[in-house]
């Protein structure tokens, strides 16, 4: 069964490593006065700022979801406890996974000429994994 938490952690690590690589490259090239630094490329610049925005906003979004989760009064359901804030957390965090995927896949499409069919298949697999993962969280709580 697809675990949404594992998928989320993996994508956040991929985003973090990509961001670190870009940051290291851009800083090192700036400090060494390279003739044509990669930050001059518009797509690299937009990818770097998108990653920075996505990862930078993670803490605020996490905190907001934690506050929502803490403020909710659990209702007892049929053999379970109902917490609707988990649905909100799922909606917010699946957006982050898709956001990082879209930011990074753009690089492959532009620089390597990745075929739209391949992108479509990978996106569908990812979206289905997210849906199944989120459903298992809503249903079983983890």
């Amino acid at each position, binding site marked *: 069964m697809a675990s949404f938490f594992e998928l989320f952690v*993996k994508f956040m*690590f*991929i985003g973090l*490593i*990509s961001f670190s*690589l870009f940051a*290291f*490259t851009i800083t*090192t*090239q700036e400090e*060494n006065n*390279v*003739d*044509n*630094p*990669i930050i*001059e*490329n518009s797509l*690299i610049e937009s990818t770097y700022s998108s990653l920075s925005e996505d990862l930078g906003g993670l803490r605020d979004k996490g905190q907001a979801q934690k506050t929502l989760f803490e403020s909710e009064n659990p209702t007892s359901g049929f053999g379970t406890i109902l917490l609707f804030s988990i649905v909100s957390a799922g909606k917010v965090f699946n957006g982050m996974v898709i956001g990082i995927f879209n930011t*990074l896949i753009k*690089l*492959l499409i532009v*620089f*390597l000429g990745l075929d739209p069919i391949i992108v479509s298949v990978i996106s569908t697999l990812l979206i289905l994994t997210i849906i199944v993962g989120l459903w298992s969280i809503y249903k079983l709580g983890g």
Partner: protein
Amino acid sequence: MVCNGLETLTDNTIKGILSFPTSCDYYFYGKIMGAFFIILSFILYYRDRTDKLVLKPDMLSCMGVSAIATMIISLFMTFLNMVQPDVFIEIIVVGMIFVSIWLIKK
């Protein structure tokens, strides 16, 4: 492919001499880095295979580690104009694919 001879070399600095092959083949150092990536991946993989402490050697993790090393060496090569900017971006993008697959599979 016919390339210019060394007599056409005008920039006699280290930077000029090292970047001279790219005037003939734009992907000269890109190809070298590609070969370096493959060789390093196999070295790491076969070292893991012979290491008794590693129970199950993993080719993808070796390729992920090699991709990071290749990206960093290519970065240093851009200081001397050896790796051209477009080639460097391609190296980074391809390297990130290997790193991503490595992290997803883990």
